[in-house]
């Protein structure tokens, strides 16, 4: 996921201001981020029900704190991820989590292709879920949340250098775990 441009950030600032004036205007922010926060919580907790709880609590907190929210030029999602991260950490002190089975969007491709694609995506997510906590956080915030190292460092309370290293280690582990050739490489090989 690409980082947000200055124009996109400005549009987001306007959305937040609109929601601060009228809570009903919070819907576009919710719709923009609910799936990201859910995916983040689900990969961290590995449990759909818990992930829904964390997502609901994150947005309840978001609405509650909206009047006091101060725009600092970083994506609103950075704040949401921080809340979700704290809630997950709190949940982690409770009994163990179990499943990891994401719902998939309905696709119009052939059933075989859909099955192959979903299987591979599930493998990738399972591999991400198996990463050590800090590496998993870094990967989720960067590749799902589209946040910058500085923003991730802020959420994780680590240095930017540490985040860079965590991302590198995580991607290296995933590369080993998922095996090669990966679909992207397969298509490149096909072209050669």
């Amino acid at each position, binding site marked *: 996921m690409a980082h947000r441009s200055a124009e996109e950030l400005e549009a987001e600032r306007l959305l937040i201001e609109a929601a601060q004036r009228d809570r009903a205007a919070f819907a576009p922010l919710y719709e923009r981020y609910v*799936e990201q926060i859910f995916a983040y919580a689900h990969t961290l907790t590995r449990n759909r029900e818990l992930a829904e*709880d964390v997502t609901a609590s994150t*947005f*309840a907190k978001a609405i509650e704190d909206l009047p006091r929210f101060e725009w600092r030029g970083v994506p609103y999602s950075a704040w949401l991820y921080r809340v979700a991260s704290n809630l997950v950490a709190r949940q982690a002190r409770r009994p163990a989590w179990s499943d990891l089975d994401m*719902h998939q969007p309905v696709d119009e491709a052939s059933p075989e292709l859909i099955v192959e694609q979903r299987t591979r995506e599930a493998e*990738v997510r399972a591999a991400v879920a198996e990463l050590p906590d800090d590496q998993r956080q870094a990967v989720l915030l960067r590749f799902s949340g589209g946040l910058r190292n500085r923003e991730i460092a802020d959420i994780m309370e680590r240095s930017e250098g540490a985040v860079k290293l965590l*991302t*590198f280690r995580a*991607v290296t582990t995933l*590369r080993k775990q998922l095996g090669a050739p990966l679909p992207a490489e397969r298509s490149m090989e096909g072209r050669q």
Partner: protein
Amino acid sequence: MNTADSLDRALERGSDNATPASVRALVNVAAEVAEALAAARLSRSEQERIFARSLALLEEAVNEQRRGWQRVLHLERRAPVLVGGAAVLTIGAAAIGWVMVHGRRSHAPIAA
């Protein structure tokens, strides 16, 4: 530049001819991870259910706050009642005292 920096740079700006093959392979992994994570979707009804739960949690928090304030206010209400009761007793005692003193004075000349 070490490999972690090279990967970071390639993730930020994209790979080019100068990007080592090992780093390009990692960029491909990263792209696949991003795609797999983006595929995690919630249906419209699931989104609505989660939002309804958020609102319920918010309402619960507001009610809890309200109950907290009510507890505080009930405690505060007791103080004026005590002060008022004490004032009534004082005024009552003063009135009895005044009647007793005034009564003795008014009866004295008759007795004389």
